[in-house]
């Protein structure tokens, strides 16, 4: 009797602890997987409200504008997320195309790439297109502009012309690289950024009808041969562009984002990266997260990974939502979404939903990743 009184309550408590949290945190996972238009519109409205506030602030003052690396990514991912929604729901084009086009154009402003210009000792990416320096960071904006051009028939011709010239420079630099890498910063190449370069080139091909097959095949072959660590299946985070030597470990955050970008360019390469990524999923009580470092490698969190806690990283976990959804890894998507919901703390009001911990950049990233799929190359 005493044993029953002791163990039965404990057993019930353990069962509740095992069953209830995944149910509570995963209740929207299937709706995101199926592409529930209500959930998608609520998060999209949050980003639109952010872009409208940003427009007002931009007109009011020339100082303290939202600019730099985080701003570039926020506007880029907002544009990509809204573009993916338009591809999934063509009837939403009228509502979202003007806003995604604005966000993409903002990501192309000089103040957004100041950080790169400083890193290249004052050399602006768009003023040095004939040069050999990679400037791969601007591919994030180039990808957003490409998606905007794909959907916006009124996209400004002056920006489209500069976009054409940037893509031509990227194509020439990538074809000249034996490693399939071009520099982001002097002496530093990031395979993830080069995946964004390939994505931008591929989307440019969809917009203009120009064939970029040769450069995309060149890149895809080098990803497999040079950039992926064979033992772990993860891409090496930083490398030497000309030597192909690793400057960092194979890591989950770089692989997750590279898998998303690679989807725009080459489905098989994206699937290969996704397969490597999901080998590094850790699960606990129905929740999933991606380990940042491959086995045998160790390190702390940085600007790419965010905090690394018990070996799993915030960024790698969030980035994994995109390939999980795009390539039908439904169980992983559901587990990782539960973790995102638990720590993202979504909050709904006034017809909008935001994940409160990540701020605008977190919401923009999640809009792009939670709606990933329609952008993937056939």
């Amino acid at each position, binding site marked *: 009797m005493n044993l*029953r*009184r002791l163990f*039965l*309550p*404990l057993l*019930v*408590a*353990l069962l*509740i*602890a095992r069953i*209830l*949290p995944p149910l*509570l*945190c995963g209740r929207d996972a299937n709706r995101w997987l199926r592409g529930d238009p209500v959930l998608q519109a609520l998060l999209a409205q949050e980003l639109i409200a952010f872009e409208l*506030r940003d427009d007002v602030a931009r007109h009011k003052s020339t100082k303290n504008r*939202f600019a*730099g*690396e*985080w*701003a570039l990514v*926020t506007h880029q991912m907002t544009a990509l997320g809204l573009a993916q929604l338009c591809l999934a729901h063509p009837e939403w084009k009228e509502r979202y195309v003007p806003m995604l086009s604005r966000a993409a154009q903002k990501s192309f402003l000089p103040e957004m790439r100041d950080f790169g210009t400083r890193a290249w000792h004052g050399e602006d990416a768009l003023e040095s297109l004939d040069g050999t320096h990679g400037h791969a960071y601007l591919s994030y904006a180039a990808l957003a502009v490409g998606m905007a051009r794909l959907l916006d028939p009124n996209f400004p011709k002056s920006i489209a012309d500069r976009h054409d010239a940037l893509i031509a420079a990227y194509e020439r630099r990538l074809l000249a690289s034996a490693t399939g890498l071009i520099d982001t910063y002097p002496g530093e190449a990031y395979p993830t950024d080069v995946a964004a370069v390939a994505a931008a080139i591929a989307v440019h091909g969809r917009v203009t009808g120009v064939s970029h097959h040769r450069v995309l095949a060149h890149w895809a072959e080098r990803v497999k041969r040079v950039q992926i660590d064979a033992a772990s299946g993860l891409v090496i985070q930083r490398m030497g562009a000309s030597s192909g030597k690793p400057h960092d470990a194979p890591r989950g955050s770089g692989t997750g984002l590279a898998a998303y970008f690679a989807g725009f360019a080459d489905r098989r390469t994206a699937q290969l990266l996704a397969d490597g990524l999901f080998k590094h999923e850790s699960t606990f009580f129905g929740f999933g997260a991606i380990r940042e470092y491959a086995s045998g490698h160790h390190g702390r969190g940085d600007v790419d990974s965010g905090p690394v806690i018990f070996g799993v990283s915030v960024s790698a976990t969030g980035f994994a939502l995109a390939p999980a959804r795009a390539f039908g890894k439904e169980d992983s998507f559901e587990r990782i979404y539960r973790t995102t919901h*638990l*720590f993202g*703390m979504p*909050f709904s*009001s006034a017809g909008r939903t*935001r*994940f*409160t*911990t*990540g*701020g*605008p*950049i*977190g919401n923009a990233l999640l809009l792009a990743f939670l709606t990933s799929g329609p952008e993937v190359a056939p």
Partner: protein
Amino acid sequence: MSSVLRSYALVLRTPAIVMVCYLLLHTLFGSLSEDGGLVTPEGSVSIGIVILGLLLLGLRLAVVFLLPAHTAYRIVRMLLSHS
């Protein structure tokens, strides 16, 4: 009968207070996070928001994992003692 009901109410009182506190904090943090999360859009840290956010996160983990299990434990114990 009323004493049994009172003892059940007592078991649920603390979880109810914690839930109300959690919902109030969540609403407050949700309202304050319109322009930035734990980090601002520019990537800097707002100390007040971070403290509130971490407090809410701790409370959320407790509400999701511990509170239901602890409440279930106490209710089952009470049911067994009254049987």
